[in-house]
């Protein structure tokens, strides 16, 4: 799993039926010191995360489908937690 910041929302009317009703967020993966890491990607969200929030994302298909509650959904990333705090002993 990775830490990421929600940076936007995506609206798509025409999509695979397993996405119906699912919220799509644009999330930017972060390093441990909160800098952007790689390219922003799309993740489904079943928790109600909002823009600017720090989230925990899962980056594997079956796990993302489980998060969405839909087996065999063609998804590869999902928000599984909204991060309150990360405690580090060394940066």
């Amino acid at each position, binding site marked *: *799993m*990775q*830490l990421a910041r929600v940076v936007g929302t995506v609206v798509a009317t025409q999509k695979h039926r397993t996405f119906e009703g699912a919220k799509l967020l644009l999330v930017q993966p972060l*390093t*441990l010191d909160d800098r952007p890491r790689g390219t922003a990607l799309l993740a489904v969200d*079943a*928790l*109600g995360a909002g823009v600017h929030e720090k989230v*925990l994302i*899962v*980056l*594997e*298909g*079956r*796990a*993302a489908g*489980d*998060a969405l509650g839909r087996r065999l959904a063609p998804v590869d990333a*999902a928000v*599984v*937690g*909204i*991060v*309150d*705090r*990360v*405690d*580090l*002993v*060394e940066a």
Partner: protein
Amino acid sequence: MILARVVGTVVATRKDPRLVSNKLLVARTMDPHGKADGSYLVAVDTVDAGVGETVLIVSGSSARMAAGMKDCPVDAAIVGIVDAVEVAAGD
């Protein structure tokens, strides 16, 4: 599977209900010589690992084969606490 050192914890009050009873740890991936390679991941803990320990992490769909993780939306799980890594000279 990869070797990593646990460097912190993630606190997330709102998260997928299947993750409620699990500890989420921040781990820095490392080479067999114990040197951090600059990357990190968040993994669910299934062996009661603690900060500072060297651990074995299974990632991808196999993470759900870790104890208690069946059908949980995770893509990385700590499945062992490493006592020592022995590397042949020259490798």
